[in-house]
């Protein structure tokens, strides 16, 4: 395949970033926005071309019809040793091609949407520069040919996320949210890095292709080394997954994501719903063959995903900030993907979990972006994040209402919306692994439907507050904002019918999806019941929700406070890291280490003071010292000689 187009896909956003970043302050807002959007649009076209060529060009299948992993280019960037070389390359295979599509699509939508949403904001050019930077990093991440390249872009993604969350830098909450996001993910990245170090130490390679095509060699290279009870490969994989946990907001490293909603809403849609947060899933998927040889690691992945899914779903039921609800929903949905990967085994339905996970990633990106952009439109209209100050908006904002509803149905898994198909496959994979996971995930799916419709009803139904005290009544956004909504809603409706199994599978063999009716029906029924419950509780303003909340007061409060994870985080950072580690160390440094150095000086001065009597000014004491000194020198020497 020609290098030009893949190179351009990466280069265009980077150039946009540089152009906008360096010269942006000289441009008009409009100019900057259009430039950025055009750049992203071009990248979108190129990415579609590439993906289309890959999937349907027919050049990238072997004799058996399996898709190939194709390295378009791979430049040496930094050679550590002969084998350990960081290369910057472009790996084209089903998941990267799919991710190219997802990223460019969502990114373009957000670029477009932001033209309206961010209109007139200070730092508009900066905003577009950062968006371009993010797109560049994310694209680089998904096409990485080796794990270190991925790590590089992983870090860049984190940094651009930091910059975008902290876009409103004068707002202390935004600043602290961005800081929190960066540090928490950084902590996770530490695990990632150590994982890379361990893995590369044993396997002596960074290359994904080398590793995944012969995962047995990776296992063999460790020679059965064991560290603290676990095999080193388990350690490496779990640590790598820890990086994924950070980015993908798995419990307990999820705490940054709800706070990250301080950023502009389109950013939340792009980064914290559709693209960056699935990087963890992508990472595990990328390394999946290696994970397969060490099932303990996959078990851990499953457990983390399952717990997170349930937790996030419960919390989402209690939040009032619409973006937070969506954030927790995102966490929960990503957890679905993680579980799906965790339960996937080649022998179970030909590894359907892997496919399901990727499928859900794709569909989720679409409808979650839709939901976030919709939420953005709402916030744009009512200038508040809380649904308590909304209600009855269906009349004021019909387009938003319809698209939002589509999004909710999709996420709830109602046929024929996109979510139904992908979620169904996940449940199939879960049930096939064990009944427990199946039931667990079905329950979470039910919760999902419930909280989404709670949200939906509270926004669009519930009551009819008086909007006249606002400076304008809510109304639908300009076309730059509604167009992406409509487009995404369309995709959400039809994406389920994409024959995903033929495109993306764990071993790149085509695979036919067929609905497992018992499971599908069960899940739809559960979802409908949950929607029904939500309808009862939230369609009209009533006191039922409060009563229910009172009934399970403890649980409710705990969930409302997100099970006190933030408090725990604060406790660890402030009480332990700052007060129990840093401060004592700083004190130790000043008082003990530095004090010792000062003490040397002090002792010298003291000694000087102490012996000043020697110089008494009396000539007689001088000769006394003289004589005794001379005698002592002699006597001591004699004694030493005798001894």
């Amino acid at each position, binding site marked *: 395949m020609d290098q030009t187009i893949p190179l351009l896909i990466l280069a265009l956003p980077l150039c946009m970033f540089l152009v906008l970043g360096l010269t942006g302050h000289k441009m008009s807002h409009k100019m900057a926005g259009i430039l950025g959007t055009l750049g992203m649009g071009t990248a979108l076209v190129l990415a579609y071309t590439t993906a289309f060529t890959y999937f349907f060009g027919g050049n990238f299948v072997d004799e058996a019809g399996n898709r190939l992993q194709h390295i378009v280019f791979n430049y040496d960037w930094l050679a550590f040793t002969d084998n350990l070389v960081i290369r910057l390359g472009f790996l084209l295979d089903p998941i990267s091609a799919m991710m190219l599509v997802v990223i460019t699509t969502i990114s373009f939508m957000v670029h477009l949407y932001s033209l309206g949403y961010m209109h007139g904001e200070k730092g508009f050019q900066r905003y577009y520069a950062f968006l371009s930077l993010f797109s560049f990093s994310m694209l680089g991440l998904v096409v990485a040919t080796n794990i270190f390249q991925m790590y590089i872009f992983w870090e860049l993604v984190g940094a651009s996320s930091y910059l975008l969350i902290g876009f409103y830098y004068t707002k202390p909450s935004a600043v602290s949210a961005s800081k929190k996001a960066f540090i928490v993910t950084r902590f996770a990245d530490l695990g990632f890095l150590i994982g890379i170090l361990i893995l590369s130490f044993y396997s002596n390679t960074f290359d994904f292709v080398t590793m995944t095509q012969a995962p047995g060699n990776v296992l063999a290279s460790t020679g059965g080394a064991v560290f603290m009870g676990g095999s080193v490969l388990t350690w490496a994989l779990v640590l790598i997954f820890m990086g994924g946990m950070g980015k993908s907001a798995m419990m307990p490293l999820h705490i940054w994501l709800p706070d990250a909603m301080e950023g502009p809403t389109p950013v939340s849609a792009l980064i914290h719903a559709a693209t960056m947060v699935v990087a963890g899933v992508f990472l595990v998927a990328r390394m999946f063959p290696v994970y397969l040889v060490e099932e303990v690691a996959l078990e851990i992945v499953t457990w983390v995903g399952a717990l997170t899914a349930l937790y996030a779903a419960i919390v989402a039921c209690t939040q009032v900030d619409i973006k937070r609800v969506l954030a927790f929903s995102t966490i929960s949905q990503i957890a679905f993907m993680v579980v799906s990967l965790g339960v996937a085994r080649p022998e179970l339905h030909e590894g359907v979990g892997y496919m399901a996970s990727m499928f859900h990633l794709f569909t989720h990106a679409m409808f979650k972006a839709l939901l976030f952009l919709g939420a953005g439109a709402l916030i744009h209209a009512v200038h508040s994040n809380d649904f308590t100050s909304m209600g009855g908006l269906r009349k004021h904002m019909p387009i938003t209402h319809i698209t939002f509803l589509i999004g909710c149905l999709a996420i709830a898994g109602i046929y024929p919306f996109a979510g139904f198909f992908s979620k169904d496959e996940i449940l199939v994979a879960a049930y096939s692994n064990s009944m427990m996971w199946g039931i667990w995930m079905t329950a979470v799916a039910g919760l999902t439907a419930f909280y989404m419709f709670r949200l939906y009803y509270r926004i669009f139904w519930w009551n009819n507050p008086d909007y006249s005290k606002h400076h304008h009544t809510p109304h639908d956004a300009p076309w730059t904002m509604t167009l992406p909504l409509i487009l995404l809603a369309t995709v959400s409706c039809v994406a389920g019918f994409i024959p995903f199994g033929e495109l993306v599978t764990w071993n790149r063999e085509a695979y036919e999806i067929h609905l497992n009716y018992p499971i599908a029906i069960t899940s739809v029924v559960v979802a409908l019941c949950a929607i029904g419950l939500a309808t009862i509780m939230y369609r009209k303003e009533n006191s039922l929700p409060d009563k229910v909340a009172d009934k399970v007061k403890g649980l409710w409060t705990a969930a409302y406070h997100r099970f006190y994870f933030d408090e725990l985080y604060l406790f660890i950072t402030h009480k332990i890291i700052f007060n129990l580690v840093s401060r004592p160390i700083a004190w130790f440094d000043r008082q003990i280490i530095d004090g010792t150095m000062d003490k040397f000086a002090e002792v010298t001065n003291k000694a000087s003071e102490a012996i000043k009597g020697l110089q008494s000014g009396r000539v007689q004491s001088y000769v*006394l010292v003289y004589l*005794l000194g001379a*005698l002592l020198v*002699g006597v001591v020497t004699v004694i030493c000689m005798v001894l």
Partner: protein
Amino acid sequence: MESVGSIIMYMVVVAAIIIFSVLAVTSRKILRSATYLLFTLFATAAIYFQLGYEFLGAVQIAVYAGGIVVLFVFSILLTSKPGDKSEKLTSKKKVVGLIASVAMLLVAGYALLSRCGFFAQLPAMEGVTMDRIGTELLSSSHGGMLLPFEAISVLLLACIIGGIVVARKR
């Protein structure tokens, strides 16, 4: 075996040395100290005579006893009023002085006594004639003292100059 006379002579001389030395440093009257010093120096000269260095004994008496002590007496008269009883010593000073001198005595005494060769008897010696002294003093070969002799003249000249400079009124 020494003659009894020389032993008695020795004893007298040594007793004089020790007693007058002690008196010289303990006497509270400074003029008396100078006098005791004079006696000590005489006794020293006596030792020199005893050992057969008559010339040295003569020099000792002439220069030391005759010159230096007179100098002392003059300066004492110059610097103190008659009947000026000197200071009363503090006991602390005494103790310190005693410690120092006793330490010196013990250490050096032990060192000397540890050397058995130092219990040597008086060997025979040919008389130290003036002729020999003169020859060796002005000889420039091995054992000759020509160079020190010349050198000390410079030293003495310098001390004279120095003494004048210091003592001169302006």
